[in-house]
Every structure is written in C-alpha cells, then in structure tokens.
C-alpha cells in the first residue's frame, strides 16, 4: 500500500517536472531530451499522454510536434488573444503553392517542384520560404547533379499546428489517388512523403557531396570503359 503510494508520488513528481520543463523551454522538447531529465526507466511518453489529457479541457494545451512537446493556447480562444497576434508573414500564391509541394512531396528537389508547377521556380520563392524557417535544405539527392532536397521543419509543424508531417490535411487521400507518387514519364520521380527526420536512401548529407561526387564519377567512368 505504502509502496503504491510512493509510486504515485513519484509519478506525480515526474509529471510536475515534465510540465515545468516544457513550460520554461523556448522550443518544443523531444521525448528523449525530457527523458534525460528524469530517472532512467521512467515512461516519459506515457506521462506526456497523461499530461496531455490533464490539459485537454484547459485554455492551454499540451501539443506534440513531430514528437516534440510544447504548450500552446487552445485554438478556440483565438478571438480573445488577438492582442498578441504577431504580424503575419503573407505568402504569395506561388510561395503557398511551393510550400504545399514541398510539404506533401518532401524530400523534393527544385526540379521536381518545377515539374509539379510546370514552370520555373524563381530562386526568390525558395529564399522567402527558407527565410520563414518553415522549410530547410535536407541534403542532396543521390542522382546526377546532386540536386539539393528540400523539406519542412519543426517550425512548420508548429506554425500550422501539425503533430507530424503525416497529419498534413488530406495526405492519405492524395497518396491514395496516386497524386504523390510518380505515374509520370520515367525521367521524373515523385518521392513519397513520410515522416522524415533522417535522410532517405537516395539522399546524402549536404556536406558530403564532394567525396561522393568523386566516387560517382569514377564509377561512371568505369562503366563507360566497358570492362
């Protein structure tokens, strides 16, 4: 009995610590980062779920953004908080469209974005999006020319209140309709969108390109030689 009570106590304390840690952090915190603050073996994910449900009816909500946790105000209270609105970054139609293509098709190269839009993308568009912090350069595609691949950031998820890339509206429907995979001419591939913390098989880190490029060339030359 007293053991159980002790356990309960510990659980309460762990909950309180998690709560405070997330509250003071300027950025969403990952389960791993939180685990490091508690004793080993504590089931942080379970505690976070409990916290989330503790807050479910409150004005503040515990939300998960790609596995990272933060407190955010409940969206239905927006009318009462207008005073605190920040100046909205207004995106042009082109930038909106490009952002959507990057979000749904990531990792995606500039050429692939252009293929979807049927038109060249001015570098200004990508610059603007990179500046918002919503997209980032992920790596390079393991393909001729080593094009840079783009994807969305945690800030993107936070900005649009998405728990993960999988929560993008209508993602499943688009996938089901085959709109996110390549039924296009062979020279064009549409990568599938997933939760993409790590690089895909056909991606290499941004800074690795030089060595790999050399390897690549050597290989090609070998093939060309026909031995």
């Amino acid at each position: 009995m007293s053991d159980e009570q002790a356990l309960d106590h510990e659980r309460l304390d762990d909950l309180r610590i998690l709560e405070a840690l997330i509250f003071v952090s300027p950025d969403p915190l990952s389960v791993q980062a939180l685990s490091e603050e508690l004793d080993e073996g504590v089931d942080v994910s379970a505690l976070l779920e409990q916290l989330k449900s503790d807050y479910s009816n409150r004005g503040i909500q515990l939300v998960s953004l790609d596995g990272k946790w933060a407190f955010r105000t409940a969206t239905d209270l927006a009318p009462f908080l207008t005073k605190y609105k920040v100046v909205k970054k207004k995106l042009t139609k082109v930038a909106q469209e490009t952002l959507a293509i990057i979000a749904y098709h990531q990792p995606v190269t500039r050429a692939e974005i252009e293929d979807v839009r049927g038109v060249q993308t001015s570098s200004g568009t990508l610059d603007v999006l990179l500046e918002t912090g919503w997209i980032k350069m992920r790596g390079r595609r393991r393909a001729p020319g080593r094009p840079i691949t783009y994807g969305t950031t945690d800030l993107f998820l936070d900005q649009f209140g998405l728990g993960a890339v999988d929560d993008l509206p209508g993602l499943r429907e688009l996938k089901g309709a085959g709109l996110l995979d390549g039924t296009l001419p062979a020279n064009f591939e549409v990568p599938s969108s997933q939760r993409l913390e790590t690089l895909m098989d056909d991606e290499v880190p941004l800074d690795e390109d030089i060595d790999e490029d050399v390897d690549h060339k050597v290989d090609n030359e070998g093939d060309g030689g026909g031995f």
Partner: protein
Amino acid sequence: MPALKLKLEFYLPPNLPQSRNDQWEQDASSQSDELCADELGAEDRLLVELDGFEGPLDLLLALAREKKLDISQISIADLATQYIEYINDLKKHRLEIAADYLVMAAWLVFLKSKLILPSEEEEEESPSGDQLAAQLAFRLKRLEAMRAKGHELMARPQLGQEFFAVGVPLGRNTVSKIEYKAELFDLLKAYSAQQQRQVVQGYKVKRRQVWSIKKARNRLSSLLGMSIEWAPINELIASFMGAEAPMKTTVASTFGATLEMARDGVIEIKQSGPFQPLYVKSTPNVEESADE
C-alpha cells in the same frame, strides 16, 4: 530556360467573344490578389498579364476551371483545343507569347493528332496519345491539388495568429562549472620561459670602463713631465694599465690626448714610418711657460 515575362496591355477588340472577356476577369481575379478589381473592370481596357499565369500548366488549369469541369472528368482533347485557340487568339493580336506557352501549344497539337490517329503502327517505346493525355491530366490534377493544399495550409490556425506559445519562455537556470585544462608541457614551457626571462632580467649591464681623453692627458702629462726622453707610447699606455692588457678605449684616448697636447705645443710626436711605434716627449720650454 526561364519563362519570358511579359506584361501585356491592350484594348479589348470589339470582336472578342464575351466568354473570353469573362474568363479574363475571372482568371485575373483568381490569380492575383495584387491586382485590384477596379483596375480589371475598367471599361473596355483590360490589363492582361500572361505572366499572371504561372506557366502553360497554370493556363490549362485556368481554362479547365473556366468550364467548371472536374479535372478528372475533363476531355484533354477539348482542353487542348481550347488552349490552342486561346494562344492563336493572342497571336492574332500580335502579342508576344513566351516560348514555353508556344511549346505547350505545339505539344498539344501533337497530342491531338496522336489522339485522333489510330495508334496501330506506333513504336513500342513512345507512349500512346491516351497515355500522354493521362499524364497531362495527372499533372493538372496534381497541380490543382497542391494549390488547394496551399490554401488549406494557410487557412489553418497558425502559431502567433490563432494559437500562441508562452509569452516569455523562462528558460532554465544554468549553472556552469568551470573545468580547467592544462598540459604538463604547457606548464614546463611556462616555467622554462619564465626562468629564462628571469635570468635575462637579472643580468646587470657592467659599467663600461671608459678612459676619457682628459684622463689620458692628465696621466700622460704627469708621466712625460718626469722625462724629456722620447718614450714609445705603447709603453706609456702599458704603465697606465699595470698588469691588465690595454683596453681599446685607453689606446684611443691616449692617442687623442697626444694629438691634443702636440697641438697645444706641450709635447712632440715622432714616428719613423707608417705603423711604426709612436714616440712622444714633452717640450721643455713650454713646460717652463706652463710653470710660470
């Protein structure tokens, strides 16, 4: 190749069908928020921005939308016809058209021909007209979907707009502990350098012994005063120094003093030849006059 940007302005020709007119308005307003409706509706003058369209695919989509057709249901052949007509119309009015719009028009002509012709003798590798049409339909559908998702994303509650983070993250109190590092080598180097420096600092500059000309003259006159014999200057110098070897300064000053004294007529100097010993002796009469 980047799309040629053209901004076209023309007066709406009276013979242009009304539907076209509608389409322009509709497209222009749906395309760009930047253009205000007033400008567009201004009588018969229309601002046409072909670069308001984001490329031929966008134009195709706009044409399809004009017909309010579900893109999945649309007849690509019809759409192609419309596009070609549209481009031809623009050409009639001698408007410059960006190359990629023309390329698309040409491709659509090709597509139409493929769709009309029976596909019997086609080469295996090249896709059939139906396949090409399906690909175009796919691209249109995909573009439309992405466009819709862009709007949907923007319509979502956003951070800093509809929901908010904590006003001021308090942050965590950081206590930093300083851990000093040093290598033995650094210590030894520091110690040695310091010791060496100390040795240099402790070095006292010895006072240089300078035999002044005045001193040499005094000595010389006291020595010569005793004798009016010719005396070799080397020996005189040696007698100054006692056991020590004569210093350069003594030699130089003594020589200087002899020249001075000779000038004053106090002594006489003789030398048998270059580099031969120098002899001096006092001039007796002058000494007398000095005594007076």
